[in-house]
C-alpha cells in the first residue's frame, strides 16, 4: 500500500469484515484474491452465507486463486475480464439494499473503476472497504486529450491516445477513477527526462 502524498490520493486501509452488515459483496481482481484469503479466519459460516464473491484473474498473476476462493464456500462468480465483472457488480448492486457492504481488492485502477460503479448506486466511497494488492500500475487520464491509458508503470510516458509525453501526478480523480497525466515538454518540445519505473 502506498501512503497518501496529496489529499486526493486514495488510501486503502485493508479488508476487514463489517460485522453488522446484512450482506457482503467482494469484487476482487488478480492478487486482490489474497486480501480476502488472508482474512479467511474471520469468514464465519454466517458471513459466507451472506456473501457474494466476484473475481477476475486478469492475466497470469491471478492464476491459482479460483480454487482457493471457491473453496471458501460463498456464492462465487469468475469473470473473464474486468469489464464483465464491473457489469455483474452493477447488477448485484442494483438488487441490493442498505445493509449491504462492498469490499474491493486489487490494483488501484481496478478499485477506481469498481468505485465508479458503486458511486453510481449512491454508495459513499468512504464506506467501501478496500485493499490495494498487486501491481502499482496506474490508470492515467491525459488532461489534454482526455484519453485514459491503463497499466501505466513509468513516468513520464507517452499518451496512448494523442502521443504527448505525460508526467504522472499523484492527483487522483474519484469521478474518473484515474490519475492525472500532464504534458512534461510543452515549453521545450523533446526535453523529456528519461522515464522512471515508479509504479511496478
Amino acid at each position, binding site marked *: 500500500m502506498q501512503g497518501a502524498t496529496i489529499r486526493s490520493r486514495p488510501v486503502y486501509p485493508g479488508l476487514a469484515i463489517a460485522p*453488522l452488515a446484512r450482506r457482503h459483496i467482494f469484487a476482487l481482481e488478480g492478487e486482490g484474491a489474497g486480501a480476502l484469503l488472508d482474512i479467511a479466519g474471520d469468514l464465519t459460516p454466517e458471513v459466507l452465507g451472506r456473501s457474494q464473491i466476484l473475481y477476475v484473474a486478469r492475466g497470469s498473476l491471478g492464476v491459482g486463486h479460483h480454487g482457493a476462493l471457491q473453496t471458501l464456500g460463498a456464492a462465487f462468480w469468475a469473470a473473464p475480464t474486468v469489464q464483465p465483472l464491473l457489469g455483474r457488480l452493477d447488477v448485484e448492486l442494483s438488487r441490493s*439494499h*442498505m*445493509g449491504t457492504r462492498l469490499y474491493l481488492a486489487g490494483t488501484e485502477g481496478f478499485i477506481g473503476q469498481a468505485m465508479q460503479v458503486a458511486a453510481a*448506486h449512491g454508495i459513499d466511497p468512504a464506506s467501501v472497504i478496500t485493499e490495494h494488492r498487486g501491481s502499482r500500475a496506474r490508470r492515467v487520464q491525459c488532461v489534454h486529450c482526455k484519453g485514459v491509458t491503463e497499466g501505466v508503470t513509468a513516468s513520464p510516458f507517452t499518451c496512448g491516445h494523442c502521443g504527448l509525453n505525460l508526467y504522472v501526478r499523484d492527483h487522483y480523480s474519484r469521478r474518473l477513477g484515474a490519475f492525472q497525466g500532464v504534458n512534461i515538454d510543452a515549453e521545450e518540445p523533446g526535453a523529456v527526462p528519461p522515464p522512471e519505473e515508479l509504479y511496478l
Partner: protein
Amino acid sequence: MMGDLQMRVTALHDEAAGIRRVRLEPVEGGLLPAFSGGAHVVVAMPDGDVTRRNPYSLCCDPEDRTGYEIAVARAAASRGGSAYIHERLAVGDVLTVGAPTNLFQPDWRAKKHILVAGGIGITPFVAMMAQFARAGLAFELHYAVRSRAAAAFAGVLQDRYGPRVKIYAADEGARLPLGALVQNQPLGTHLYTCGPERLMDAVLETARQAGWPEQALHSEHFMAPPPGDPFTVTLGRSGRDVAVAPDQSLLEALEAAGINPRYLCRGGVCGECATKVVELRGTILHGDHYLTPEERAESRTIMICMSRFSGDRLVLDL
C-alpha cells in the same frame, strides 16, 4: 459578528400547542443571504441584563429570500430564549440574527432521503423537503409527536407531500417503526434524524445494527447549554477572572464580560469555539458532541458553548 442581520418580526403564528413560528424580514429590505435545507441561524435576544444567543433551524423554503422563519418550542425549563419568544416577542420587534450556517447538510449524492423527526426536531426537515421536492428527489418523513395537537407543520406537510409524510402520535399509541424503516431501503439511501437525544440514539443505533455505514447516517444534536454550579474561569492572556452564573454558559459569560470568542452553532456540534486549556485543577464537565472520548479525557480543549467546570482553577487561552 460579521454578517449579522437586523431583522424585523413580521408575523407570529402558533404552529401547534406550545410551538411558535416567527417570520423575520430584513429591516433594510432586499434579498437575504441564501441558505440550504438544514441550516440554522443564531438569534440574539435580551433576557434581563444578559443577551441570549440561541441557534434555531430555518424552517422555511430556501428559495424564498425575502424572509427567514424559525419555530420555537416552549421549553419547560426555559433559560430565557423560548420564554422570550413565547411571552414577549411582538410583531414589529427587531432582532439581531446571524448569517445562516449549515451543519446538517443533506448528502446530495443520495438516491433517497429518509427523515426521522421527533417533536420540534421537525424544523430543519421543513426546509430540506422543500429542496428535495423541487429537485424531484425521493424522500420520506417519519414524524413522531406527543399528539397531533402538538405536531407543528403536520397539516401543511401532509398537504404538500401527501403519503411521503407519516405521523406517529404517541397519544394514539403509534410508535416509529424503526426496525421496518431501515429494512429493504435501496442502496444509496441516507438517514437523517433530529429530535430528543433518546429518539436520535434509537434511530441511529437501529440503522447501525442493520448494517448501515456511518456515512449514510446524519443527526443534529443541538442542545441548550446545561445549567450547573457557578464557577470562575481565568483568562490566560490578561489574567482576568470571569464568573459564570448557574444559568449562564461559559460562552455567554465571556460575551457578557466583553470578550467575543468565535462560535457558530452554540450547541456543541460544530467545533468552532474549541478553546485551549492552559491550566486545569479540577474537572471539565464536557457537554458537547464534538470532542472524541480521548480528547475529553485529556481535557486540553474545552468547547465553551456547552461545557462547564468544577474545581479550583481553569485557565483558558483567551
